[in-house]
């Protein structure tokens, strides 16, 4: 009896010391700032949080980082720039996070990217694809913005290379949605088209809430447009296809990656959805690593089409962890330098990363990592035709 009590006391003492020990070595806090509730893109944000949490769980299971446990602090920005800016200051100044993953929407990153640059806290984007997000605040300035996601510019470069290489594309038309997203895409389209000497026969616009674009399409039809490049979000892209069906006009359709969204598939319907060709970072033909993570997070994914964001966030977190190990500290400037000169190789969910970033290269995923994709029987599968197969590196102009 007595002996047993002694044992109990010893165990209790051990537990006490352990808790005290972990309390001493402070946790490393990782922040997430993005929309997870308020707009159609919130599903992407939710997927990002799931992927980030999975990465943190894996790191903690393997003993944490620099002997310290990791914890996640999530802030919802409701897609609103003012809220997102506020979250950024809150995460950095009050929560004292050492790194932030986010945001969900490009516009919010553009609204606050000066903050992490001033406070010298690395940020890794997992969703927003606007080209300018990862540009330095001034030429040559230290840059704390990194990204493991799709990027608009190389996407457009690939679509324009397709137009240039396709012998059937004789008359090209552009269409865009009148939001920041659509207009940013249009600018990229016009600039890269000019490099190829491609002159669009018509450029038409529509509002993000429009459900009928027959008038604009009839103009393109009258101009004889046989290839249409469109930059818009998922739902209006779907309505565009429905309008095409109304006037029975189906040019070759190349679109922004928003066509991978379930909102596009639902709005267009299963048959029409198959007509759009676009780029994506992961198709439903997943690698073994991707399938593993997919099986882990998919029960909690609102829509399986948002899986790439989980994978991007997972890899972003792991690349950060590698940089911290290399730097031996979580000090912002040192981690940034380590990220810009990562040694060794990290076998990620998306690919094997070898020195992904440098002082000028901010993108973890490059045009060569993007997949040509289309919908087939409700799945996002690899797309291939003679034009895609004929594309060479020199066709991608940026």
């Amino acid at each position, binding site marked *: 009896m007595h002996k047993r009590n002694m044992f109990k006391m010893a165990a209790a003492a051990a537990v006490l010391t352990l808790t005290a020990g972990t309390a001493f070595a402070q946790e490393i806090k990782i922040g997430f700032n993005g929309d997870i*509730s*308020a*707009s*159609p893109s*919130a*599903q992407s944000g939710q997927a990002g949080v799931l992927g980030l949490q999975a990465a943190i769980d894996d790191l903690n299971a393997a003993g944490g980082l620099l002997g310290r446990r990791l914890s996640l602090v999530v802030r919802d920005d409701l897609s609103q720039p003012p809220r997102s800016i506020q979250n950024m200051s809150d995460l950095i100044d009050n929560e004292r996070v050492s790194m932030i993953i986010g945001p969900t929407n490009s516009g919010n990153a553009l609204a606050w990217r000066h903050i992490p640059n001033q406070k010298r806290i690395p940020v890794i984007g997992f969703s927003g694809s606007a080209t300018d997000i990862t540009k330095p605040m001034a030429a040559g300035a230290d840059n704390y913005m990194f990204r493991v996601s799709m990027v608009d510019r190389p996407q457009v470069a690939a679509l324009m290379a397709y137009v240039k290489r396709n012998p059937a594309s004789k008359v090209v038309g552009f269409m865009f949605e*009148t939001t920041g997203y659509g207009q940013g895409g249009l600018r990229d389209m016009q600039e890269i088209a000019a490099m190829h000497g491609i002159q669009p026969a018509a450029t*038409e*616009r*529509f*509002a*993000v*809430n429009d*459900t*009928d*674009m*027959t*008038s*604009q399409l*009839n*103009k393109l039809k*009258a101009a004889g447009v046989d290839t249409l490049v469109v930059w818009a979000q*998922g*739902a209006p892209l*779907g*309505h565009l296809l*429905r309008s095409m*069906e*109304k*006037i*029975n006009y189906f040019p070759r359709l190349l679109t922004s990656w928003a066509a991978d969204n*379930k*909102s596009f598939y*639902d*709005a267009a*319907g299963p048959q029409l959805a198959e007509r759009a060709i676009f780029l994506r970072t992961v198709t439903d033909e997943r690698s073994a690593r991707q399938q593993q993570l997919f099986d882990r997070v998919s029960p909690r994914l*609102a*829509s399986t089409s948002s899986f790439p964001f989980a994978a991007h966030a997972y890899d972003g977190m792991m690349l950060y962890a590698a940089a911290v190990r290399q730097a031996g500290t979580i000090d912002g400037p040192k981690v940034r330098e380590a990220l810009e000169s990562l040694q060794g190789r990290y076998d990620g969910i998306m690919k094997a990363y070898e020195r992904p970033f440098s002082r000028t290269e901010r993108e973890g995923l490059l045009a060569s990592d993007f997949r040509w994709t289309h919908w087939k029987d409700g799945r996002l599968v690899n797309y291939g035709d003679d034009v895609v197969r004929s594309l060479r590196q020199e066709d991608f102009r940026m």
Partner: protein
Amino acid sequence: MSATYLQALLSGLSVGGIYALIALSFSITFTTTKTLNFSQGEFVSFGAFVGLSVLLLLSGTFDFNAVPADASAGLKFPAAVVTAGVLVGVVGIFIFLLAVRPFAGKPGMSWVMSTIGFGIILQSLGLVVWGPAVVNVPAPFGEGVIRIFGAGVRSQELVVLVSAIVIMLVFDQIMRRSLLGKAMRAVAFSPQVASLMGINVTLVMVGAFVMSGVLAGFAGVMVAPISTASLFMGLGFSLKAFAGAIIGGLNNPRGCIFGGFMLGVIESFVGLWHSEWREISVFVLIILVLAVRPDGLFGARTVDKV
């Protein structure tokens, strides 16, 4: 070429039908209480999701990610329309009691903020219950394209167009013939005098907000198969509808309906010409109309005695 113009006309009328329905719901509260419900857009979205929930429940599921293709078949769609109309009508009572009545008739524009705030609460509640996802709603008469002289239109667009016209005619009769309509017009003319004549003014005002809510809920379910349902769908439509109501004349229900249809057709035809002028033309038209006829094209001139 004529098919192109016919297409623009049909597309314009079908979008205009949506505007007209919501414009009418703006007009109802304005004519009786001289206030507007600035959260009408949220009412429309809320109605769409109430209707969608009914469609799913009647189909024996509650999975918003997999709406069955036959979810709108048979009597399910009418049931969803009625339920959404009734429920949003009830929400209309609440907005009147909580956000309009405390401020109506008092100097200042407090009811503008309070109705907008009510809409934010409604949308947030909706996000808690249904989440932010965009949900596809099957049309009761299928998704096929109906061809009329080379122009294409979908069944649901025709349904919205026809029901907007029918509702307009019925409403017109109610307002002009029935006792209720006369009471509403009396309250609109002068609440004090109406009250002296034995009309329960508060009840009539509540009735106006209920009718406005019923219309918004109805519009939400009717529009959902065209626009796909989302809790953000109502705002765009209600802004245009409000513009249509201003053009037609807020205090004339017939004018509001006309304004809604006109806006849809103008948008469609301007799109044929220069799509960048679509939004501009709508608001240039509003400024022109207000400059020439401040009460809208069909609005009755009101003179405020000072």
